[in-house]
Structures are given as C-alpha cells and as structure tokens.
C-alpha cells in the first residue's frame, strides 16, 4: 500500500520584478512500502524542489501530502513527527555533514529526538548498530572520526545512517551518488536497495542517470519543467520511451556497447536535427501549451494546447499529444515502433 501520497503538489518561487516562477506544477505520485520510485530529469527540471517540498523544507503553494493516509503535519510537533517518518539523503556528502562534529554526533542527535530513547551504553550500541547497518565497520572507530577523515562513499553512508536513526518509513534520496566516484556508486545504491528491502522503506530516488534509475527502481517518473511528462514501470519507460523528451534523454546517455559506425550515424542524425534549430531558438521557452514544444522534433499545431496524461500501455502514461486519439495517432504508431532501442 502507499505510505506517502502526494496530490497536486505546486511550488512557486518569487522572482524580483517578474511573475512567480512555478518550479513544480500540480504533481501527484505515491510511494509504496518496499518499493523504489525514480524521478529523473535534466538540471533545472524541478526534481530537487519536489524532494524539498515533500520533506517540507520549502513551503508548497498548494497540494496535499498524506502520510499513511493522514495529512502531513505542517507545524510544531506534528511537523516533527512527520519528519521522523520522512527522511532525506542529500547529494553532496561533503556539504551535508558538519565538519566540526564526529560521526557519532551526526548519528546520535536524531536518536536523541526519539521519545524514550536509549541512554548510556545502550545509546552507544544503537549508534554502532546504525553504522553497522550501513557497512561502516568497525563502528567504534568510525564513530570517533570527523567527516574529513572519511572518503566520499563513507560520508554518504554516515548520511544514510543519520537518516535511518529516526526510524523512517520514507527515504527521499536526492542524487545520492552523483558526487561519488563511479566505482563507489554501486555500493551505495546496493546499500540503499538492501535497506529498502530489510526495513520495508518507501524510497524516492532522484537522479539524472537513466541506467541506474532503471536498475534500482520499479517505476520511473520523468520530469520536465516542473511537470511529469512520462511515468510507468521502469523497463517500459527506458526500453520504450514514449515522450519525445524521454527519448532525447535515453539517446543522450553514453552507450559503451555501441560500435563506431552506429555512433557516427547517431551523431550525424543529431547534428542534422540540431542544425534545423538556431542557437537562440534552443533557449526559448514556450508560453502556454506543451512546455517541450520548442525542443520537440514532433511538434504539431495541437501542441499549443497543454497535453494531458495519455496512455501508452498499461500503467504507462505520457503527457504528449502523440498518444492522443485523433490528431497524432498515425504519428504515434509509426513513431513508437521506430523509437525502440
């Protein structure tokens, strides 16, 4: 069942001398226990704002957040107990730990917030248990260290242990591995995956890396300029990307298995597509209608109207007129078969 439900979440930021900027626009999704939902998109698409709004670090303009069916507390002790249940892991483990404090301090503070928390030797044992659960061993030694004595991967493990200390049901992981070395990333992702299973956590995995999104999540949502343009089971979304933006994302990812010839061909195709648009055009943002219109290779007249979520397959939705009943039907059919990997 869904642990956390987000309905019509909207977040706006004020801009000096301009209309408010809508970073997240009526977004809805649900996180289920023991499942990972991935949120992917390019820089500036609003992924981190979603995480911050769900973690209630920024105020939402409108929308509801339900935790286990109850509206999330917004103030005082109700907010605090919400945060105990919804914890975050941030992108940069070099910035998210306080350089002045030991590892023990980082992990013990959230433990002390729990009512009836353990004391004395039992408290130390609780810290060590948490450190062991994220594979930081020997815990006695690690607990006494300061962040600068740890590698990036170890720091991120401390950040995860800290998030687990309050006994959360939901973990929001905002690009948890993008600051880490490639060789370390898998260990952290495998760790999150194991913790999710062991503790029956609901995990929101925010990333711009489609390959790990597919590998570590059961469902994927693709975000573009504040809205979800495609969502569905992860294999479906990656192997059969339906929204033109998802297709561009999927094609842009490096493909080490490609041959020289196929790379050349793909590059030539991209360059000719790009040559059709001028440098300035690339920057324009369309007002009204589909937000992807100015970058979309399949833009049609109807795209001046804002598309709704249209079904591509079971549980697989794309916010794109290509999948509408009347205007773009023919294109969608021919296009979906041609777009396969």
């Amino acid at each position, binding site marked *: 069942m869904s642990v956390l439900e987000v309905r019509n979440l909207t977040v706006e930021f004020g801009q000096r001398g301009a209309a408010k900027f809508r970073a997240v626009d009526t977004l809805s999704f649900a996180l289920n226990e023991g499942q990972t939902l991935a949120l992917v998109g390019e820089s500036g698409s609003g992924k981190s704002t979603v995480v911050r709004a769900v973690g209630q670090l920024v105020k939402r303009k409108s929308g509801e957040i339900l935790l286990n069916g109850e509206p999330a507390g917004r103030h005082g002790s109700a907010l605090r107990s919400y945060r105990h249940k919804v914890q975050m892991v941030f992108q940069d483990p070099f910035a998210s730990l306080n350089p002045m404090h030991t590892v023990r301090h980082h992990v013990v503070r959230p433990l002390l917030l729990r009512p009836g928390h353990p004391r004395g030797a039992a408290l130390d044992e609780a810290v060590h248990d948490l450190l062991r659960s994220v594979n930081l061993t020997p815990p006695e030694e690690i607990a006494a260290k300061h962040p600068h004595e740890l590698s990036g991967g170890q720091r991120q493990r401390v950040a995860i242990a800290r998030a687990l200390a309050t006994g959360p049901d939901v973990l929001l992981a905002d690009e948890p591995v993008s600051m880490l070395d490639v060789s370390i990333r898998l260990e952290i992702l495998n760790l999150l995956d194991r913790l999710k299973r062991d503790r029956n956590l609901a995990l929101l995995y925010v990333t711009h890396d489609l390959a790990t999104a597919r590998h570590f999540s059961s469902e994927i949502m693709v975000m573009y300029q504040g809205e979800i343009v495609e969502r569905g089971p992860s294999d479906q979304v990656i192997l059969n990307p339906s929204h033109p933006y998802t297709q561009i994302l999927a094609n842009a990812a490096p493909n080490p298995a490609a041959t020289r010839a196929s790379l050349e061909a793909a590059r030539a195709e*991209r360059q000719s597509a790009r040559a059709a648009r001028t440098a300035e055009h690339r920057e324009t943002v369309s007002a009204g209608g589909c937000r992807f219109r100015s970058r979309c290779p399949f833009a049609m007249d109807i795209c001046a109207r804002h598309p709704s979520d249209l079904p591509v397959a079971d549980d697989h939705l794309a916010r794109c007129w290509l999948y509408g009943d009347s205007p773009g039907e023919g294109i969608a059919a021919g296009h979906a078969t041609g777009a396969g990997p």
Partner: protein
Amino acid sequence: MTGRDLGAAADDVVLRADDVCVEYAGRRPTRAVRGVTIELRRGEVLGIAGESGCGKTTLAYALTRMLKPPAELTGGSVTFFPRDGGGVDIMTLSADDLRELRWNKIAMVFQSAMNALNPVSSLARQFDDIFAAHRPEMSRAQRRDRSRDLLDMVGIDPGRIHGFAHELSGGMRQRVMIAMALALEPEIVIMDEPTTALDVVVQREILDEIERLRAQLGFSVIFITHDLSLLLEVSDRLAVMYAGEVVEYSPSEQIAVYPAHPYTLGLLRSFPDMRGARRELRGVPGVPPDLRNDFPGCPFQPRCDYGFGPCLDVHPGLSHIAAPVAAQGDGQVRDEDRYAACHLHDPRYRPDGPPAELSGAAADPIAADSAGSER
C-alpha cells in the same frame, strides 16, 4: 621498468610524455603521478580515466608545466612535436617560450566552466585578452570579428559577445570555454572533465560539438574524466589510471569489450547497462591507496579479486600484452596496441595466461560476474 618501450615515436605523435613523476611536497610527500608514459597521436582523442585522486588532473597540469607548489615535477620529460616538424622539450623551455606554446599550441579546457570564466568582465573582453597576449598584431576590429566567429562556431549567438558569464547556462559557458581554447587554433586541446557538471542532454551536445570541431580543425584531444562509459564512446585510445600509474593503455574499442586489467574490468562492471538485461552490480569495493605510501607490489592488490603470489612484492610495470584471444589471428588487433600493468598477463607468473574474462577469451567478460554481491 618505466614503460619507455612504447615503440619508437611514430611520425604521427604530437605529444609524448616519458616517465613523468609529480610529487606534492609535505612531511611525507604525496607521489601523485608515478612514472607515466603516454603518447598522443595527431588527430586522435586520448582518454584518461580513473577515480578521484588517481592523478589524472595532476598529469594534465604536468604536461603543460602548470603545476604550482606544493606540486613539483620530479622526473620525466614531455616532448611536443609541432606540425611543422622538430621536437620541443617542454620541460626545458624558458618562461617566454612556454608562454608562446600555451594556448597557441596546447590549450586547456578546465573542469568547472562556472569558475573558469571571469564573472566581472564581458566575454568580449576575455576574448580580447587572449588576442592581446598572443596576437598583438591583430586590430581591434579583427579581434572583435574573430571572437564573434568563434562563438558562432560553438553554436552561441555572436550577439552574446557583450554578455557576462552569469547570463549563460552551464552548457553555454562550457561552449564559450571551448571557443576560447580554440581561439588560436591549437594543435592539442587538453580537456579536464569538460562535461562533468552538465546533465546528459547538454553533455551530449557538447561532445557532438567537440567531435565536429575536431573533424573540422584537426586538433588532437586529451580527454580526462572519471566517466569510463563516456570515454569508451568518445576516445580512440584510453589510458586507465590507478594510484598515479597507467594500469591499462589500449584502443578504446578493445577496452570496452576485452578489458585486460582487473581494475578496468571492475570499472566496466560498475555501471548498469541501460538497455541490456538487469544484473547484479557491485562496483570496485574498497578505497584507493594513500599515495604517500610506497607500494612494493601492485597498488591495486588490496582491492583485486585475482591477487596471487607476486602481486604482494613485485611491482607490475606497463607492458605489451597479447591480443584478445577472441581476436587473435584476424590481424585487426596487434599485440603492440595493448598494454597492461598486471602480473596475470606475465607468462613468467602465469604460464597458462590470464583468466578468461581478462584474456579476451570470455564472450562477455563484463556480464560474467558470478561473484556479484554487496559488500
């Protein structure tokens, strides 16, 4: 062994580094680059891959003598072979000659374009600075025209010339950096993580741009990044660095399919295949060694699944290895194309040759990870 035997310097070599060593001074000096020998051929993209702290950026700085204390070049030589013949020993150049060489012949694109552009001068003034220093004979109008052409060349509206860095997106700033690096038509461009801070779509655009410009202008590229999957795609040959040394040095297409060093294999198994079957992945467990230490044996030994007797006390040098078993006899891959620093490939220690997944005998060595488990 120092790896000096990378064959005689072929005609098409444009930059050759021989046994380069760099130390960061300290009570116990950090030996960041340890006897690196590489060759950049004319018109090729040479990739340098490795984790943070493996010495790849330090090596790039050493190639153009840009190291600042406490970093110090403690050995080796770097030779530049200009298009018009001759060889220039970069290590012995005077300050004036070095200035003449940098940007003119060897340009560099730095890691974070955000910080490499001056936030308080317009792009026009920053382009002017380049030409004023290196092309004093150019008139004001010529400089302006050339700057506009350069912006246009990298796909930025020339009208932006009077703009400032903060008015540009990250991708556009990186394009400007590339335009600046190419301003004097260098023969070599060293790119240090040019796309790391960018998202995949913008990264793809920048890579396409680099490839197009290289085809058009014919410069050679040293491309440094930790993203091996990217390098396999963009580079012609690839040097994998670990703990200050090159541990594998081969054509990229070979490395992608037939990695020879256990570290390279570990890196290749670190990123999931976006479209292939799902499989267990585990990265390269462990952490890189402290470069203040000396390693009597192989620096990768503590993290290596294949360690055996000599790895503990004999240091493996970079040497020729046999063509991949699967490709032997087809004439496509010559032995002298592939180098690795690993005892598994040394017949004195392994008369039967390396295990199948490192010898090129396994059909899909990257997928054949039976030991995959979380540590």
